Every structure is written in structure tokens, then in C-alpha cells.
């Protein structure tokens, strides 16, 4: 197992290296001189020359890449052009809201989606099943920001149940923290719930058609344990796979959700950076988010052995 984990970690390296290459090339693919881009609109030729020298932009491209990867490996993502702070520090300062939002959404969405999918499969063909499937198509089609504004309008402006926008750190109390996260989590989680519910239903339908389910039913296993212990456990691998792949939806959605709900997280950081063309931040956030995605999917791969003892590495 440990050897397998080590092997998998190694096999991640090319993927991460390719991500790094794309992100590095982004700045260099831009039309024009990277030094001039970094220097900004009001720079003098001397400024530009200075930046070019300071950042090693006069060196050959492959050397620049090696230097950049070297600093990446030391956890150095460069400095923001606007804030002049290290990108790592900036991301660290804004990590709490983003992590809170992503984790609450993830946990609630997974529980909700699996219950919906299992119920739909158990009652396949009924109105309830059709409702869940309809909801799934709908959840895929409505953009995060449209749902977000609809939720704000109904629950914050009209009914005044929940705050309109903003974020309260968890240190200031769990309840205010949660109150601020309810609407953003629902908006962010909708597409994710739809995705997982759909695959849960599909896999459960396959498993429920297996002989051992019929055997279980024949020997008198009650409906609930049959569904949750016998069937769901066997349907776990594809479901967990989609939960991992769907993290990409969450990561993309976080950027939009934080803008809609004015949450001062990593997503806002990168959106503000676009407006300012603050490339080191854009590059750094892409590296971090891609890294998280790769790690989550590694964890998913490793979880297969726990979920299905037939899978051995």
C-alpha cells in the first residue's frame, strides 16, 4: 500500500509539471514583452529593463522555467504586482472563507445527493424518481450566479432570514459563520448535487439488478439494510470517482460564488487580480487550485481499496 501511494505520488509529478508548464507559458505566450506587462501601463523603458533583469527575463526560456519551478518547489509563488506581498501570503490570508465554503458545500452536497440518488433508484419510475432526475437536469443548467442572486432576493431581501452578503470568520462564532455560508453553499452546491445524484441513481440501478440483491431480498434482508449496506456499498466506487471529478465544479464555482456573495476568499483574490492584470496571483491561484484537484483525485484513487476490498494494489 505504501509503495503504491509512493508510486501514485510520483505519477502525479508529470501532471503537475505540465500544469506548471502551462501556467509558466501563460505569461510568455502573451503578446508583447512580459517585462512590459509586469511593469504596467505607466512604466518607463528604464523600469522595464530593470524588471527584465530582476526577474531574469533576459535569460533563455528553459532556464527561466527551471528557476520558476525551483521556486515553486520551495513553495514560492512569486510576489503580487499590486500588493507587493508574496502570493503565498495573500492566498493564506484569504484561505479560511474559501475552505469553509468549499467544505460545507462538499459535505452537505454529498449527503444530500447520495440520499436523493438512492431514493430515486429505489423508487425508479415513480413520480419521485422523475422529480429527482428533473432536478438534476435543472441543477446542471442554472448558472451559479443566477441561483445566487435568486437566493439572495428571496431569502435575504424579501424574507430577511439570512444575511445578504459577506463572511464572518468562524472565530467570531459558529452560528454567524454558518448563517453567512448557507446561501452561498446552496448556490455553489446545486450543480454538484445534480452531478452526484445522477451518477448515484445510475449506479444504484445497476447494482440493484444484480443477483445478490435478489438473493438478499429472498432470504429476507429488510429493505433499508439491503439498500444501504448491500447495494450502496457496492455502488461506492463510481460515486466516489464522480465526487472527486466534481471538485473541479466546486473550484470553478467558488470563484463565481465569492463574487456574488462578496466573500473575501481566494476566488475574489483572483477575480480582482484579473482586473489588475496581476499575473503572479493568477498563476499562483491556478497552481494551488490545480494542485488541490490533483490531490483530491489521488485520495479518491486510494479510497478504492477501502471501499472495495477486491481492489488491491
Amino acid at each position, binding site marked *: 500500500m505504501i509503495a503504491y501511494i509512493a508510486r501514485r505520488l510520483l505519477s502525479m509529478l508529470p501532471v503537475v509539471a505540465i*500544469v506548471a508548464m*502551462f501556467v509558466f507559458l501563460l505569461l510568455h505566450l502573451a503578446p508583447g514583452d512580459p517585462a512590459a506587462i509586469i511593469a504596467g501601463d505607466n512604466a518607463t523603458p528604464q523600469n522595464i529593463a530593470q524588471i527584465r533583469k530582476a526577474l531574469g527575463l533576459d535569460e533563455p526560456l528553459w532556464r527561466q522555467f527551471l528557476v520558476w519551478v525551483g521556486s515553486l518547489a520551495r513553495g514560492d509563488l512569486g510576489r503580487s504586482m499590486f500588493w507587493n506581498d508574496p502570493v503565498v501570503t495573500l492566498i493564506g490570508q484569504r484561505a479560511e472563507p474559501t475552505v469553509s465554503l468549499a467544505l460545507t458545500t462538499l459535505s452537505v452536497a454529498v449527503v444530500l445527493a447520495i440520499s436523493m440518488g438512492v431514493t430515486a433508484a429505489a423508487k425508479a419510475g415513480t413520480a419521485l424518481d422523475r422529480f429527482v432526475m428533473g432536478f438534476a437536469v435543472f441543477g*446542471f443548467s442554472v448558472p451559479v450566479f*443566477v441561483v445566487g*442572486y435568486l437566493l439572495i*432576493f428571496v431569502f435575504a431581501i424579501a424574507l430577511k432570514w439570512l444575511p445578504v452578503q459577506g463572511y464572518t470568520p468562524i472565530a467570531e462564532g459558529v452560528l454567524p459563520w454558518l448563517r453567512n455560508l448557507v446561501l452561498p453553499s446552496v448556490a455553489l452546491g446545486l450543480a454538484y448535487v445534480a452531478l452526484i445524484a445522477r451518477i448515484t441513481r445510475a449506479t444504484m440501478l445497476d447494482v440493484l439488478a444484480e443477483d445478490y440483491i435478489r438473493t438478499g431480498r429472498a432470504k429476507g434482508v429488510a429493505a433499508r439494510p439491503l439498500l444501504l449496506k448491500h447495494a450502496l456499498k457496492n455502488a461506492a466506487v463510481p460515486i466516489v470517482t464522480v465526487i472527486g471529478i466534481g471538485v473541479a465544479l466546486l473550484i470553478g464555482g467558488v470563484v463565481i460564488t465569492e*463574487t456574488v456573495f462578496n466573500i473575501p476568499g481566494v476566488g475574489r483574490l483572483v477575480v480582482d487580480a*484579473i482586473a489588475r492584470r496581476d499575473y503572479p496571483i493568477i498563476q499562483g491561484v491556478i497552481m494551488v487550485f490545480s494542485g488541490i*484537484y490533483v490531490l483530491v483525485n489521488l485520495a479518491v484513487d486510494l479510497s478504492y481499496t477501502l471501499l472495495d476490498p477486491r481492489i488491491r494494489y
Partner: protein
Amino acid sequence: MAAVAEAPRAEPSRVGQFQTFARRNPTIVAGASLLVFMALIAVTAGLIAGDPLFLNPSDRLHGPSSLHWFGTDNLGRDVFARTVFGARISLVVGIAVAILAITFGLAIGLVAGYYRRVDAPVMRLMDGLMAIPAILLAIALVSLNKASVGIVIVAISIPEIPRVVRLVRSVVLTTREQPFIEAAIGGGSRHRKIILRHILPSTIAPLIVQATYVMASAILTEAALSFLGAGVPPETPTWGNMIASSRLFLESAPWTIFFPGTCLALVVLAVNLMGDGLRDRLDPRLARRM
């Protein structure tokens, strides 16, 4: 097919044929009609709506009325006109991205699936591309250039390509093990001919389905880019731009957000419904499950 056993009947009329098709494939017909309706609106935008850029400062944030069906926004622009013209950008971007991503994805996927030596490096490259969240990659690509519809189309297409490549490659890998490919090789066909004549056709059905999903996701990404201020220039009427510029007026003028938002959701819903219907029809194995 039950019809085979029945006695020969008179050829059903065109209308009858369509009714049968619609009854058997309600989602394709519902999605396609909604999409055709939106496309008609987009094409005839200049005829049915006024000037989307016309400012009338004395007419700001008015609710829906007989004069302005969808009300006016904070600059006194007609929301109906802007929504109708916004359909153009969404549909053009959706269709263009679908064509671009499918074309490149198909070419790369055919080569990667058929030639074992290119397979591993190409797929590692695709894995790397897929690890970057699509919206962020598109944002980064747009932020490097002056925003225009063309740049947005390219920026959204690039993250979609790896998904198409994976699909095509998996089809090629199973098809190339079929006896008829072996026969073609044995018969002395050239690789080019084998790929184009014998393997390509089996990728078409799954690609049609994939194209609809690419289109739906492209329309959503375009709107998200506009909304985040990283899409087409803000004065262009797109649904994402409209929502972005109206978000401060959610409380006083919700129509400025909800009309374009509803249209956006409807178009994506139409494309998704069509995709689901097509998949059921083209891939009977999956029809029961999803």
C-alpha cells in the same frame, strides 16, 4: 421492433412521423424547439427589439411595461433589447466552441488512440490540461489578450478539448481491436484509410452527444467570464455582462438580473435536454440508466 411483425400499412404522413418521433423522444423535441425558438430570436434580434445600446438617462430602472417589456436598467437601456441581443453572443460562442473543441479533440484523439507511441505523451498533456479548472484557465487566457468574442471562444475551447480527446481515444481503443480492423490491416489498407474510413465513423454518435454537453458548458462559461469581467467587453450586451452591471440593483430592479438569468438557464436547459435525449437514442446501453 414491434412494427416489423405488423402487416404493411400505408406510409404514415410526415406529420404522423413527426408525432411518433416526438412521442418517443420528448426531450429531444422539447430541447430542440426551445433552442430553435431562441435561435430565431437571436437571428431576428434587429427586427423585434430596439437598440440595445441606446441610453435614456431619464428612463432608468423602470419596471416591465408595455413600452419596455423587460423594464430598463440603471442607464435607461431597454432590458428586452439587451436580452434578445445577448442570445446572439451566447449561441455563437456555444456553437463555435462545440465545433472547435470537437474538431481538435477528434483529430488528437484519433491519433492518440491509434498510434501507441504518441498515446502516452499526448494523454499526459491532456491530464495536465484537465487538472486546471476550466474557468480559471479561460480567465487566464482571456486576461492575456484584449477581450473579444474570438479570444473568448478560443479560451473556452482549450479546456474543453481534453474531455473530447479522452472520449474519442476510448472509442478508438475499443474499435481498433475489432476483427474488421484486423481484416483491413491484413487486406493492406493504409493507416490513414483505416482511421478515416473504419474508425472515424464509430466516434460520430458519441461525439454528437458530447457536442451538446460542450455547447452547454461553453454557454455557462462564457456567461461566467462576462459576469467576472473577464469576457467580451462590458458594453456588449451579453447575459453575463447584463447581470454583472445590474448586481447593485438587485433589490430595486430585480428584473435587470432575472430576465437575462432566466434566458441563460433556459438555453442551457434546452441544450442539456437535447443532449440527454440524443444520448438515450444514440447509446441505448445508457438509455435506461441516466
